[in-house]
């Protein structure tokens, strides 16, 4: 296994410890609950915003904690939703009179843990609301299914809601805002390789040398279909078409365009995909107003990328532009 790992069982704890040490002044780490929180949280003048999700998606979500972003994140093990306890105790540690907002990616495990934790927290008198994220167009949404997955588009929900929370907006307003953002956000991804969870030590699935997996999730779950690897532009077209048709995005729309790396793909390649997608959108009369290229929501060391589009309006653009801080930075 080609990984910078010690004892696989300690992987998540050691990563969180590293994040805390790299941000000694701004972040606090509560090892009992895998919680990374703002050192100055809870702030009684604002709603606290909490994410859970699994580990292995970094920077989502533990590295998105900071001013104007999340107040805390309490991930579970690699690719596993956090246990109820983590969510409950994290909610208590972040309790603010203005309430605690749970941002939950739509997966069975996450939903259950956050539902139960919310019930238990409410029983203890806390004010809690839930915001579901489900931006993945690869999954068909119907009453007979578990619904769409939350993937890289969660970044925009967090950024917008985090900025609005910082401005002191009410819990109910944040839920409404978050739903609105989620409602105009669409994502689809492809994998060129599988990924290797440290505890498993081998790739989650096998992908032939000339194959790619279209519509892949961020946990190594297989996607819509498997097909022969294509040039970057063809891949960008397929992802973009699926995303554009779904909302649908139309001529005249202003959008944010994200090309998200899944972990093992170098930055240079992401820009090749970005360039083509940007050009295609421009040709279609869709105006790219904000650009996001890099790793936002990864799947360990998986090679591949996802494309996210968000339809912008003035409020949303100004929330995306609002100042934010996070545990990861380049400069």
């Amino acid at each position, binding site marked *: 296994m080609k990984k910078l790992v010690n004892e696989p069982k300690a992987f998540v704890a050691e990563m969180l410890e590293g994040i805390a040490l790299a941000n000694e002044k701004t972040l606090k780490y509560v090892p009992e609950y895998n919680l990374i929180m703002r050192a100055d949280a809870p702030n009684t003048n604002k709603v606290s915003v909490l994410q859970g999700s699994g580990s292995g998606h970094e920077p989502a979500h533990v590295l998105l904690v900071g001013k104007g972003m999340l107040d805390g994140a309490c991930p579970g093990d690699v690719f596993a939703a956090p246990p109820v306890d983590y969510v409950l105790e994290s909610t208590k540690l972040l309790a603010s009179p203005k309430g605690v907002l749970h941002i939950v990616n739509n997966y069975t495990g996450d939903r259950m843990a956050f539902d139960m934790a919310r019930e238990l927290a409410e029983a203890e008198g806390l004010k809690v609301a839930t915001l579901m994220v489900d931006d993945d167009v690869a999954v068909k949404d119907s009453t007979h299914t*578990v619904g769409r997955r939350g993937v890289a588009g969660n970044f925009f929900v967090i950024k917008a809601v985090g900025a609005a929370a910082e401005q002191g907006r009410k819990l109910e307003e944040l839920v409404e805002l978050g739903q609105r953002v989620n409602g105009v956000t669409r994502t689809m991804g492809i994998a060129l390789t599988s990924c290797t969870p440290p505890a498993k030590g081998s790739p989650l699935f096998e992908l032939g040398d000339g194959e790619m997996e279209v519509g892949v999730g961020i946990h190594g779950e297989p996607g819509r279909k498997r097909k022969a690897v294509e040039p970057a532009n063809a891949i960008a077209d397929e992802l973009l078409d699926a995303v554009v048709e779904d909302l649908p995005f139309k001529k005249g729309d202003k959008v944010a365009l994200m090309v998200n790396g899944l972990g093992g793909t170098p930055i240079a390649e992401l820009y090749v995909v970005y360039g083509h997608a940007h050009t295609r959108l421009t040709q279609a009369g869709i105006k790219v107003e904000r650009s996001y290229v890099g790793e936002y929501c990864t799947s360990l060391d998986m090679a591949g990328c996802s494309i996210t589009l968000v339809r912008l309006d003035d409020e949303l653009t100004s929330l995306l532009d609002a100042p934010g801080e996070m545990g990861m930075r380049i400069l």
Partner: protein
Amino acid sequence: MQRQKESGVMQAVEWVIRVMAENAVENEDYFSDLDAVVGDGDFGHSLARGFEAVLETLDESNEQSPGALLRKIGMVLMAKVGGTSGPIWGTAFMRAGSVAGEKNELTDADVIAMLHAGIDGICERGGASIGDKTLLDALIPATTTLGARLSRGEEWDRALAATAIAARTAADATRDLIARRGRASYTGERSLGTLDAGAVAVASMFERLAERWPLEGK
């Protein structure tokens, strides 16, 4: 569990939990590999970490009734296990414990009622029903078989042997199901032909219990 009365119902329940836990720990890689086929490959890891904590709890706990012990185990699974399995398995143990209440004796009917309560808890919690390709597809037929055998007066060892066979047959039959719940459901038809990891784990636990029962379960 009447046969167990002399050595105590409490010990029998503890023994059952311990066998399940050891099975989970020993099969960590196998269960994860099954989950990797159309899921995310962490089921074995989650279950093993959870049942390791269960084993510690068993060693330390001084609960006075089977019900209290089961509720405690349910809490531990909830607290320590993430993913879908923590809430699902935790809920099952907690519900079973609630039905047992503070009783110190458990009739066969009590045991079947506890299993049914566990199943109901899982259905409520996860929204799945039979045929959705989850552990319910092994647990429900297994419970039906055990209930039928015990109620017609069969001994526990023979009833458990039949139950293990029913569970395994049902687990194998998940190959023919399309996943409609859990992470495997994202792959839709591609889940056809694959075994459900949770169902296999349930079958494997019943088999282990059936094997050991006459030797160690007394």
